[in-house]
């Protein structure tokens, strides 16, 4: 008998009497603005916020936010950057990127998270090997809590998807919080409506 059949057989034999699966409520938050909730949660988790530029020039804004950045690589149509993504041949080449730019599908007010999949990253490592990440988020695309976030069922047909909440972080030594553990050192959300003029 294979290990598979062994394991499943033993589990079937030992399973306690069946218990019912409860329905999951959405626990809608009673009041409060989604956008303000999102902003507060993002900052709490170590993320930064930047207002959309009045002149619509996102490339200029990013150069101002990261004056020392040499390589800006964008997976969005709104930001040009200076390293075209189609020139990147392997995920490891993203290691030279100072600032990666992506557009999130939606945000979560409860936690300040943004949802991103391989469709947004184009190369997944862009969200982790880059030193800094800029995320464009449509302020109209914010859901209240994680129950709603997980009801966007089609999103989870992506091969890879992630709720990113602020930058990578660690507190493994004496509980001292450090932003910029193994992945991005900073995460900046620019509230910018989809289809805004460039």
């Amino acid at each position, binding site marked *: 008998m294979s*290990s598979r059949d062994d*394991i*499943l057989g*033993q*589990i*079937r034999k*030992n*399973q*306690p*009497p*069946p*218990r019912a*699966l*409860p329905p*999951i*409520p959405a*626990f809608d938050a009673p009041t409060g603005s989604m956008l303000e909730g999102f902003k507060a*949660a993002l900052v*709490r*988790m*170590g993320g930064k916020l930047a207002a959309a530029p009045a002149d619509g020039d996102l490339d200029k804004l990013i150069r101002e936010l990261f004056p020392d950045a040499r390589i800006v690589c964008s997976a969005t149509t709104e930001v040009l950057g200076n390293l075209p993504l189609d020139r990147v041949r392997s*995920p*490891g080449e993203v*290691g030279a990127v100072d600032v990666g730019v992506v557009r999130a599908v939606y945000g979560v007010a*409860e*936690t300040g*998270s943004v949802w991103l999949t*391989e469709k947004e990253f184009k190369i*997944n*490592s862009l969200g*982790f*090997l880059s030193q800094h990440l800029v995320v464009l988020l449509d302020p109209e695309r914010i859901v209240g*809590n*994680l*129950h709603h976030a*997980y*009801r966007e*069922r089609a999103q*989870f047909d*992506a*091969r*890879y*998807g*992630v*709720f990113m*909440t*602020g*930058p*990578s*972080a*660690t*507190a*493994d*030594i004496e*509980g*001292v919080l*450090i932003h910029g*553990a*193994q*992945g991005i050192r900073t995460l900046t959300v620019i509230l910018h409506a989809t289809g805004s003029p460039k």
Partner: protein
Amino acid sequence: MKRIDHAEASSKFIKAKDHLDFHDQRLWDLRQKRDRESEHIPEWEELRALASAIKEHTLTHLADYLEEFERKATANGAHVHWAKDAAEHNQFVFDIMCAHGAKTLVKAKSMLTDECEMRPFLENRGIDVMETDLGERIQQLDNEPPSHIVVPAVHKLRTDVARVFAQTIGTDPKNSDVHYLAESQRQHTRPYFLKADAGMTGANFAVAETGTVVVCTNEGNADLSVNLPSLYIASIGVEKIIPKIEHLGVFVRMLSRSALGSPITQLTSHFRAPRDGTEMHIILVDNGRSERLGMPDFWYSLKCIRCGACMNTCPVYRRSGGLSYGATYSGPIGVIIDPTFNLRKYSSLPFASTLNGSCTSVCPVKINIHEQIYKWRQVIAERAQLPFVKQEAMQVAGKVLANPKLYRAAVETAGAGIEHLPRFMMYNRLNAWGRQREVPAAPALTFRQWYLKNRSKQ
């Protein structure tokens, strides 16, 4: 196999006063942060009840859900393997790596791979294994197992880390600045992500509906481990299955709040299918779980989502340190899981508890931890796994407590004894309770004497 002596092992930990005090405070701080977070969620108790019910439903239908997960994962293009025990698991990992000519493995933290003792197995066969979580990496470099399931090096001070890093990755031994140490590990680890042949993670949840592996981390190391190499291996205990995507909302809302007191981990990653041109392998591991499922009192421990809240709140864990349990899983959850692996070896662990029940009240999936600890004591006493001194003491106590006359006589003499006995008779090897504390002064009257004098006439 040698019986772990938890009290003896923790006495070493207790001797290092600065470590003990820091450890106690750091974990209590996590507990307080957890309280503040949970108090902000009006439906917290409802979420706990839901999480418990979802887990109990899944565990009572586990075979069907595992088959559904396997079907979906296979359709997604992942390869699914079934490992009966640690040896089979480790062999799968090695064989998969060999088939790809893979020599270097970058891995995220996984308690399951610690449970299977996978690292030494692979290292002995020429595989370079890189732990990429900071705490787990510190423990790897110091040749120690993790002492906590969420914060593996919580028993170490920054000076300990500076010593380990100076000896292993060449940092300045005099510099124990935490930012410097963390940055040094980042710089040291980065080239491994770029050159590794394979990446590995455990799983916090595995979703039957979609075949998705969900990993909750803070450092970004799991996403780097999976998104760079062309081979990804996920090791998953069979109890990690949940039915549907929508159930993740319940668990993810509580996991990091219970563990660290933060609303969510910085990264909640969903790995469903391999990238183009890469392979994804999933190893479903039993290693005693199916047997535990058949234990009427103890199967509830399989609901555990490994948040560590029970450890952070436990006065015994906070003051004895995870390594004193001599097992992969320490603290209250370890106390109820470890005896299922080896009753004799871990027979002292259920006694490493005050039975205060705090573990049960913070558990996000409502495992009746303290009741299980009490039940394990019964099992251990019945199977005569108690050490001799405790056995004798309990037999005497049993006789005395069962007989009112004997009990009264004993209480009266004990009161007199505390006042008049010489110290060597009270505080000796046979009285474990007298080792770290003084017995309080005895009252002038026993309760019965007081009651007869003051109340019996009314």
